């Protein structure tokens, strides 16, 4: 009696264990789809490691499963074959876009028949060193590092390795501050890439064009997110240079966004500036209602935020970042160039999106300059 019960219990425990294991495995596949906390991952190490794990939500339509292997077919029969290791820190939309752009770019590269090996650390920074080490061990021909912490891990490992495997990087805000390079030309011979420093000026220019008399902007942000604090500091510096003032309200929870927006609105602000703050973006509908009632337009730091209620969103084109890196990779792997030929440059192509519906609700018309370059999401 008691023995059979014990056996039953053991069976139950093992079934439970298997279910847990299965759930854990399933998780690592699902997790690649994450929320719309876009450019923040480029800003600092902390922002990623704090952001990614608690964003276990499936909010975007990127359905990327890690690890994944894609073969880009070259038409040319004489194409050189190469293996490229791609490392991403977290399943964040902007970072996935770099990979998408790179994959598409390599597909069009006729000179190289590349096998892409994509790995996502799922927000766990301690996974980076093992992934890079594995790539170096398996003699990949090139590594694409997506985001700052990945770049740092890759540079460290590659320096120690000493073979000089070419390394490209994408979605890195400041490769110099990250210690990967001392200057645009003063860098390791095997390193190349583009600096993705999101311009703050764009939002101010758009605001000034919509309302030339504007002097005050309101920013709601979660002070526990490093990227939001950094973005706010940049914004305050730019505002000071222009003689504008920045009103702030902090939030700790998406349910506080409405109250915070209300508080900002009563301080006579001319615009809401929406940083890529995941807490804020999750509760942005609360701000959108206030913007509607007070006729205060919302300008966002990323084009994707227009879906969540902003009138205009302007952010870096991360897909283009991936394509440019693919162009580098194509030239390097086909032997036409070496990474040393490419100094680190800043790219400033922005992806602009606007919503005529939101703009009308917030009492503005989309300026012609925005309408020219942006896409209307309706």
């Amino acid at each position: 009696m008691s023995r059979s019960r014990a056996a039953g219990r053991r069976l139950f425990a093992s079934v439970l264990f298997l279910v847990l294991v299965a759930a854990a495995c399933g998780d690592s596949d699902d997790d690649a789809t994450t929320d719309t906390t876009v450019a923040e991952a480029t800003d600092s190490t902390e922002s990623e490691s704090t952001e990614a794990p608690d964003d276990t939500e499936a909010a975007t339509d990127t359905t990327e499963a890690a690890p994944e292997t894609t073969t880009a077919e070259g038409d040319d029969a004489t194409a050189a074959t190469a293996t490229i290791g791609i490392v991403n820190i977290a399943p964040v939309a902007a970072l996935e876009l770099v990979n998408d752009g790179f994959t598409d770019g390599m597909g069009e590269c006729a000179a190289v028949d590349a096998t892409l090996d994509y790995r996502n650390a799922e927000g766990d920074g301690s996974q980076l060193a093992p992934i890079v080490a594995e790539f170096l061990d398996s003699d990949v021909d090139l590594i694409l590092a997506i985001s700052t912490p990945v770049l740092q891990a890759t540079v460290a490992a590659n320096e120690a390795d000493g073979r000089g495997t070419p390394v490209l990087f994408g979605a890195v805000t400041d490769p110099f501050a990250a210690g990967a390079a001392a200057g645009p030309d003063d860098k390791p011979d095997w390193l190349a890439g583009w600096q993705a420093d999101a311009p703050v000026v764009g939002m101010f220019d758009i605001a000034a064009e919509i309302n030339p008399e504007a002097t005050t902007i309101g920013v709601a942000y979660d002070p526990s997110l490093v990227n939001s604090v950094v973005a706010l500091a940049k914004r305050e510096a730019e505002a000071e240079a222009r003689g504008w003032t920045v009103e702030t309200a902090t939030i700790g929870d998406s349910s506080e966004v409405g109250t915070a927006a209300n508080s900002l609105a009563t301080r006579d602000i001319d615009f809401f500036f929406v940083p890529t703050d995941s807490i804020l973006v999750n509760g942005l509908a609360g701000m959108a209602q206030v913007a509607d009632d007070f006729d205060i337009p919302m300008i966002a730091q990323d084009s994707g935020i227009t879906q969540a209620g902003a009138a205009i969103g302007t952010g870096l084109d991360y897909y283009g970042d991936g394509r440019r890196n693919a162009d580098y990779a194509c030239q390097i792997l086909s032997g036409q160039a070496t990474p040393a030929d490419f100094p680190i440059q800043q790219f400033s192509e922005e992806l602009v999106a606007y919503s005529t519906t939101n703009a009308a609700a917030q009492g503005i018309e989309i300026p012609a300059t925005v309408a020219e370059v942006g896409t209307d999401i309706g």
Partner: protein
Amino acid sequence: MTTESPPAAATVRPPPAEERDGSSIGRIVVGAFLLLLVVALVPTLWGAVSSMGAPQWTEALAIGLIFAPAAMGIYLTFRVLDFPDLTVDGSFPAGGAIAAVLITNDVSAWLALPAAMLLGALLGVVTGCLHIYLRINSLLASIITLTAAFTVNLRIQGSANISLLNSDRIFTPWTEPIRDQLESWFGSTGVQIHRAVTTASMTVLIVVAVLLVLRWFFATEVGLGMRATGANREMSQSQAIDTSRYLIGGVALSNSLVGLTGALFVQHAGFADINSGAGLIVSGLAAVIIGEVLFGSKARSMLARFVAVALGMIAYRAAIALALNADLRFPGTDGFRLEASDIKFATAAVVVVMLAIPRVSETRKERARRRARA
């Protein structure tokens, strides 16, 4: 550590007379400091109050009314049942989740309210059963339910965030007429407050209905049994009251009220977020305590107590709105400024102080009694 405990225990003995005098001097010093602080803060506080516009007051009122059922639910578990229950942090987003799904699928915004209450009650039943039948400590039981609720909520919602901006909510049919009316009365201010006014005026009806139901319920035999269960479980058992069932029922009732708040909140805010609701238990406790202190700690009838708690929640929300507006720069400091995020610390501190006051006065009475005996 263990070797040091005997001398430490010795100091617990009642302090000698001189020390007591010293402590009264200390009390004067602390009192004077607090007085100074208050005097220093009055101008900034006044500045905050006067800078609060009508939109913020109405918004605070609306949010306070929305959270009033949750505060009543927390009062029910915390004070009536004497069962500290953290499940509320999970039943709030649960109510929001089911409401959001029903609304976005065009079922019915009104049906979302009972559905949210049902789901909240279900979570309460789980916590109660874990506690009663598996003998899991009440806090642990509620944390377990809360953890599991996250997954349930995510499954219900399908995604972490649902926008309801373009869906019909219970407030939607009234928003337009109320806006037009308010605009004709107050101009642009009317437009700015119309959403909060709509929410407040409809939610106050729901809150009154909830209050009436609670008043009726706590006069029935079941309600009285529930109160007895909380007051003295052993005694109730000896009176042939099925305390387990009443405890589970009470926790379920409490969480159904929190679920109702969740459903109302998403309809007002225009979105459902899986991660909202963290810390609801503490703000609810703060509302309970503020309500007791400000609006009747001696209230006898259950109705008066629940009303006090509801008013406490409105006062708490007004205080938060005030803090968002306050530019509290302490004299002599340059950089230190109170931020809205400091609310969490302030709330926790208020709760601790208020919970400590009865204990401190008890200790003092005890000491006085001992002195009288000596």
